[in-house]
């Protein structure tokens, strides 16, 4: 065999064949490239198997010990492969598509789960639990979360829903639209999203639409400080939320994640929309750390 042919043969062997034999049994080295998926893995009791997470994966607290393999929407292929995972979990996004494909081409098993709505959550938990070889933990988590959300619904059953606007950014004014997890949480928390029909998931709207839709509660889930939303809406005296001083801050990252803390987010949101109805004996508005 000539030298060229040998090199060629080595190259073909190196590219085509699987470099490591596929592991028998459930994956033991898992990388999660999304904060929501990381939280689900921990909630399933498989957090110890995580050998890499994305830079934005900040919950639960134990995850701080796990090596980072790049950003949520910009994972590093090399850093991911370097921790020798046998399962990589990602969410569909144009930002990570190329990287996820490259990881797949390198022979690593990739599981893509969606994280936009509650329906996605009910699908992604069993999918993750199945892939991790612990399907019964997935069923348990889904049942538990569904029960807790039903509990919130039940306790708000007699309450008249309030017209709600949830603001995520002030300038330009970006709000929660229809078809999102956040819109579903508003409904569960005893609200009606006044801009559900506006057309996109996170629409930019004009201030005059706020006047026209006249929300009874404005929930400010944006980054700005306390006074900023009040200043923005101050002149809109005909809006009930402004008139009655019902502009509420919601600083809870659970609200933005289709993960195991959705029920906590629903409780926090219900407290913002209907203060005092859920827990008269002063349940905290803070999300629990885990």
């Amino acid at each position: 065999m000539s030298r060229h042919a040998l090199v060629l043969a080595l190259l073909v062997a190196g590219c085509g064949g699987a470099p490591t034999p596929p592991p028998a049994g459930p994956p033991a080295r898992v990388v999660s490239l999304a904060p929501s998926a990381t939280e689900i893995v921990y909630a399933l009791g498989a957090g110890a198997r995580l050998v890499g997470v994305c830079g934005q994966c900040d919950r639960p607290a134990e995850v701080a010990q796990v090596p980072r393999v790049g950003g949520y929407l910009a994972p590093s292929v090399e850093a991911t492969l370097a921790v020798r995972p046998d399962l990589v979990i990602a969410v569909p996004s144009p930002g990570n598509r190329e990287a996820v494909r490259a990881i797949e081409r390198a022979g690593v098993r990739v599981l893509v789960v969606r994280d936009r709505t509650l329906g996605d959550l009910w699908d992604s938990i069993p999918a993750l639990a199945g892939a991790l070889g612990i399907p019964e933990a997935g069923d348990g988590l889904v049942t538990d979360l569904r029960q807790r959300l039903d509990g919130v619904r039940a306790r708000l059953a007699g309450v008249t829903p309030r017209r709600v606007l949830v603001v995520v950014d002030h300038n330009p004014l970006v709000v929660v639209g229809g078809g999102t997890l956040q819109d579903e949480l508003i409904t569960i928390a005893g609200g009606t999203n006044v801009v559900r029909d506006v057309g996109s998931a996170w629409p930019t709207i004009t201030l005059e639409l706020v006047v026209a839709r006249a929300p009874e509660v404005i929930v400010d889930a944006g980054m700005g400080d306390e006074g900023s939303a009040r200043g923005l809406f101050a002149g809109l005296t005909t809006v009930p939320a402004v008139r009655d001083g019902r502009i509420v801050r919601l600083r809870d990252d659970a609200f933005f994640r289709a993960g195991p803390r959705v029920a906590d987010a629903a409780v926090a949101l219900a407290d913002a929309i209907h203060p005092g109805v859920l827990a008269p004996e002063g349940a905290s508005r803070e999300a629990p750390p885990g």
Partner: protein
Amino acid sequence: MRISARGTYLTPARLAWMTAALAAVLGLSLVGAALLGPVHVSLARALAGGDASPDRVILFRTRLPRVLLASVVGGSLGASGAALQGLLGNPLACPHVLGISGGAAVAGVVALVAGADAVSPLVPLAAFCGALASIAIVSGAARARGRTTPHAVLLVGVVFNALAAAVLMLVNALVSYTQAQGVLFWMMGSLSTQSYGLIAGSAVYSVVGLGWLVLHAHDLNLLTAGEEGAQQLGVDVERTRRSVFVASSLLVGAAVSMSGMIGFVGLIVPHLLRLILGPDHRLLLPASFLGGAAFLVWADTIARTVLAPAELPVGVVTALAGGPFFIFLLRRSLRRSVA
């Protein structure tokens, strides 16, 4: 290169007549745009009703401030574009190409990331200082032995602008998702409802800037015809350049600090008006202000209504509406000059 168009001799009567006509167009645009929006508003109810009337709140607290802001921003961008094109003798000169808006945006974003609130007046103030600092850096870097060469200013400006864009992208990559939205605002530009106080403040800056430019209109005319000739006719070329730079950055600072980087207005409006009205800066500068104001008022009206109740970024409209129309006018004038 020389920017040329139909040369009509500018008499005081023509100046007054054209300025009044454009002012009337702007006035009508303000009224028309205030009556159009995603929500139907009854003027009668708005005027008759008290503070309890939603029509009144929509008209006077949300729509009118925004329409006025659009006019201040559009006017500032138009006038500064006209002045910079004349000063540098280059048809591509505009606040964006020269890096003034980029510098303003970087300063605004830095203030934002440093913890200033998105709707506090601190952010526009920082952006305003950023505009002044950028023009100082750009014109300073393009100066040698006390002389500023126009093409050096353009080159330094282009590089500075790319640098500013890179800084914005860097910040965008480093900050959290919600803060990244704020960075995007500066890069795309958007008009939102601001308080009358802030709008009046930026209007003061842009009117001072415009007045300053108009005082130099005659010198700008001579400069456009050629630097040497202007010098022989007694124009202090360096001083004129400095004045026009500072006045332009006043205008751009007022605009960008309130609205981010809205493209195309500063480039297209002056060219458009030069093609229609001729190159005399005594008319062109106020006309570009009034025309730029009217243009942005209508572009924003389209942005507010076309996808109603959702809103479109106004920069999309200025580029989509302005670009093709500009090429059409340019082709017409090219054909005429060849024939």
